[in-house]
């Protein structure tokens, strides 16, 4: 989770609202990794994810006047990223089924501790996360990757804390079944 650097960031936002392209670019650079973790966590590392990531910032650019700083910019962008990712998942349901089909083949992959390549491990974990239902996946991404508290996740998604906790527990149960035999 990116910290909210109030003064510097407020100046950038004010300047960007005033049409300063360079300030807006700095905001993009500051938050692109945070947005990437959410979007790629939800959609996998694909061109689609990159397009959605760009769309997050374009939406922000167009609605900058509505951003009053009531939440941190990181949280605001994360919410946009969640909504766009969920929309994208609906659009590409067929493609998603194809991805899930590919994930089934990960049972044939060698054990994690035999893997030397960190990128392979990362990809393996990513594929395991993609195997979760979107409702579980988003909770896992926000809590375990982004590090938001369960209360923050509940507020962001607009669902009760108990639901977040049960989805988180069930999500981890599923991940345990996928990942633990390889650990």
């Amino acid at each position, binding site marked *: 989770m990116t910290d909210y650097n109030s003064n510097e960031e407020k100046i950038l936002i004010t300047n960007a609202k005033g049409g300063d392209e360079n300030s807006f670019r700095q905001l993009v650079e500051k938050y692109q*990794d945070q947005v990437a973790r959410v979007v790629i966590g939800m959609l996998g590392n694909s061109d689609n994810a990159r397009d959605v*990531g760009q769309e997050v910032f*374009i939406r922000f650019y167009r609605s900058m006047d509505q951003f009053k700083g009531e939440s941190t910019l990181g949280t605001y962008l994360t919410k946009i990223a969640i909504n766009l990712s969920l929309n994208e998942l609906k659009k590409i349901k067929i493609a998603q089924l194809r991805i899930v089909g590919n994930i089934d083949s990960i049972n044939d992959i060698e054990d994690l501790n035999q893997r030397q390549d960190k990128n392979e491990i990362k990809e393996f974990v990513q594929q395991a996360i993609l195997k979760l239902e979107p409702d579980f996946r988003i909770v896992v991404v926000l809590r*375990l*990757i982004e590090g938001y508290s369960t209360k923050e996740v509940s507020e962001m998604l607009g669902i009760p804390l108990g639901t977040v906790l049960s989805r988180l*527990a069930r999500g981890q149960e599923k991940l345990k079944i996928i990942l633990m035999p390889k650990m």
Partner: protein
Amino acid sequence: MDEKLSDLLIRSFDEELTFEEQVRLDNVLKNSEELRSEKKQLLLMRELIGNNKNSFGPNFSSEVMARINESGFSSGIFPLFKKIAFAGAASIIILLGLHVWSGGSLSLESILGVESAAQDVVTFNVMGH
């Protein structure tokens, strides 16, 4: 492994257990090598997931800026255009309402003022005779 214990263990990472649940979990952890091992694996799993830091790679911000510039800076003008368009449309509706209220008809001729112009022409012709 008792499923309830496993569930308790998973929950303990993200929520505050009740006093009784915490005591129960602590006791079993003390005595069960299997549960301790599962705890280690779960921690490793959470670490692996937490380290799953993705990025869009280089040039991302340039691509965003290019897309904004494409569709672009005109989108900054669009809200202004929208406001003017709405104000114009509202004015037209109010004027039409006033026109009807004052007893006028809603025909195209009357709206454009052509009806009265035509009458003027007729009057002129009669006088010309």
